[in-house]
Structure formats: C-alpha cells, structure tokens
C-alpha cells in the first residue's frame, strides 16, 4: 500500500506496492462522502436488503473511492461517481450471494413479528426481485429513488443514454406487469 502526496508537482505517484491517494484528496473525499453517505447507504440497502452487508459495502465504497482519485477528478458529477462505485459494489455482492439467496429469503419470510411497514417493504423488495435482474434493479432505484438522469446512468454504466432509456422502459413494464399478475396472461 502506498499513499503519495506532492507539493508543486502535477503528478507524484508511488508504487510501494500500490498508490492509494493523497491525504489532501482523502480530506476532500471524506467531505464529499459525508454529504452523500446517507443516500448511498440507502441505495446499498435497497439493493442488497441486508443491513450488515450494506454497512460493509458502504465502507467498501469509501475505500474504493479513496483509491481512485483520478476517477473523481474525471467525474462530471461527483455524486454520480460515488453512486457508480456503490452500484458496482452492490452488484458484485449480489453475485457473490446469489447461491444463498433462497435461504436468505426463507429467513426473511420467517419473521413473525413484522409490522405493516416491514410487510410493505418486503412486498416491494420481492416485487423488485421477481421482476428485475440485479442490473436493472440498480438502474430503476438510481433513476426513480435517487433521481439520476439517463445521461448520468449512462456515465455510470458505460452504456448510451438511449440504451439506458430503453432498459428503464422495459424495467418499468416488467415491474408493472409483475405488480398485477392478473394482467400477465389471457
């Protein structure tokens, strides 16, 4: 691990073995992170549906961001950059966890003292999970709960804005059809 900071030089990087960030950058990032921490935390929780995992991922997002000072420097929108990292972390975590998913769902359903709020939450989670793949879920949450535009989502995902709009349209249809199973077939 290596952290390098330069006075006067445009570039000072260390391989010792790997550069992370300058401390000045860390201070800037901390300020940015504090500003968006709550929303990013919510997004992670919305994605992975597991509080402890979401907390770990939130910490991971911060450390990943800390290692990518160039990413922030090149980002058009700092918040979109952070959410992009969060999206990748959440998708990776979901991939890792996929095989445990059924067991996890059984455990969630087993809770007998769920309040109406909990049940409403579970219903939304289940609707999302049965109607959308994780990648589309990530897009839908970022678009409709966190307000990112198709252009910003395109920047986060490496797709074109048109492709994002198309995916969102398909995802909306899928969500609405799943919400009303009676409409699914003849």
């Amino acid at each position, binding site marked *: 691990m290596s952290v390098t900071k330069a006075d006067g030089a445009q570039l000072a990087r260390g*391989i010792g*073995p790997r550069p992370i960030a300058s401390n000045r950058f860390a201070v800037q990032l901390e300020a940015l992170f504090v500003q968006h921490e709550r929303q990013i935390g919510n997004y992670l929780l919305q994605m992975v549906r597991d509080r402890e995992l979401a907390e770990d991922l939130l910490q991971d997002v911060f450390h990943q961001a800390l290692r990518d000072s160039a990413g922030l420097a090149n980002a058009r929108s700092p918040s979109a950059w952070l959410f992009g990292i969060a999206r990748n972390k959440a998708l990776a975590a979901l991939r890792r966890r996929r095989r445990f998913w059924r067991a996890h769902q059984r455990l969630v359903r087993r809770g007998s003292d769920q309040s109406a709020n909990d049940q409403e939450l579970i219903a939304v989670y289940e609707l999302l999970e049965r109607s959308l793949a994780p990648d589309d879920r990530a897009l*839908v949450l970022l678009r409709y709960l966190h307000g990112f535009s198709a252009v910003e989502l395109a920047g986060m995902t490496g797709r074109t804005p048109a492709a994002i709009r198309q995916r969102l349209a398909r995802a909306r249809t899928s969500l609405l059809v799943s919400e009303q199973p009676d409409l699914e077939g003849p």
Partner: protein
Amino acid sequence: MTEMNLEEEHVRRLLAPLDRLEPIRRSGRQRPGMRAGLIAAIVAVALALIGVSLAATQWGPLSGISSADRPPSERDKLGPEVVAQLRSDELPAGLSGDQIGKRLVESARWVGNLPDGRNLYLVPSADGRLCVLAAGLSESCGDALTRAAPITFTISANGVGSRPLIYGVALDGVVSVAFRTGGVAVTLPVRNNVFAYEGPPYEGSPSQPGPGVSAPTVNFSDGTSITIR
C-alpha cells in the same frame, strides 16, 4: 401528463417504501472476510501483510533498511518547513480514511539526496507505516517493506519541459531496480538503500504530467528478481 410520465410516477410510488428505510452508517467493525478482502485490495500481495505485521510489531518500518535503521544523527533532524510539509499531509484527528497515522518526525532518518539535491528522509508513522519524504516535493507512505514488496517507487513529474524524478528506497539485499520510461530501459543501482533517476525533459502530451513508467523489476543480491505490480 404523458403515458410515460404516468408510468414513471407509478413506479416512484411503488418504490416509495424503500425511501423510508432507516439510514445505515459505514461499518465501524469489519467482518474478518471483509477486512481481508479490503487489505488484499490495498496491498499488492498477501505476503506483504505478514511482513507488515511482523515489521510493525517487532522492529518497526525502518527495519531491514540499514541506512535508516541506526541511531539518530544531526543530519536526521527535519527543518520546520519539512515538518510543516508532513503535518499538512496528515488527516485531522478523528477523520476516517487515514491509513497512515501521525508521522513520527523525531524518528526520521536521512537516507540520501535526489538528483536535484533534495534531501530524502524515511519517516515512520504511529500506525507502523513507512513514509518516504522528498523535502519540499512529495511524501509517499505505505506498508513497511518486505521481501515481496521490497521497494517504494515514487514518480514525480510536472508537465511538458520538466524532468521527471523517479526514486525510492529498497530493503537490504536489493541491488538494482529496472523499469522502462519514455521508451527507454533504465536500470538503477541501489546505494545505501536508495535509488533515484532524473529523466530528460518531458516532451509528450500536455494533458499528461509526465512519461509513462512500467512496473519496476527488483533485482536481489542472490540473483533473484521480482516485478512489482
């Protein structure tokens, strides 16, 4: 309102319960698996971790660097402007994200000069990290050196027309460090645990601060070598 807007509004309402989740905070504690994963991402090799913990707990980050692992001398004393440089790099107390810790300026050791005459110091940190300080230029901090990660490697460049500086500190037993920069193969001898190189004036793209530099290969006195990535 168009049909699409109505649909979007409906989706927002559908998802609204997820907006009422209780906020989470960054985990203070990390599960063993997560911590291992995080550190593995930070350091180049897992072996370095073992070396770090040994070095930090038993001998300190100057261990294995003979030119620095010695009693203090007058030359090791840092001037006020150099101390100020170090302090400006430290994160305010209590701020998360500090992976280095307070620099122990009283334990600094002068190890040599860079080609431009600047003094080069090694400064251990309170968290057991090793900082390489080029006075008035830059500070690079990282884990203590190990056989798997036996050098620090800092590249300092300042745009077109400036001469890039490449320098570092090596563990005892490292005889040379080789890399390519600006299309040229460079092999630097290690003297008193220090290697340094000043390249020709950079004539590349103005959008880049300096020439590219390949991953360095470290050659040991026993004839073995490793490439640090």
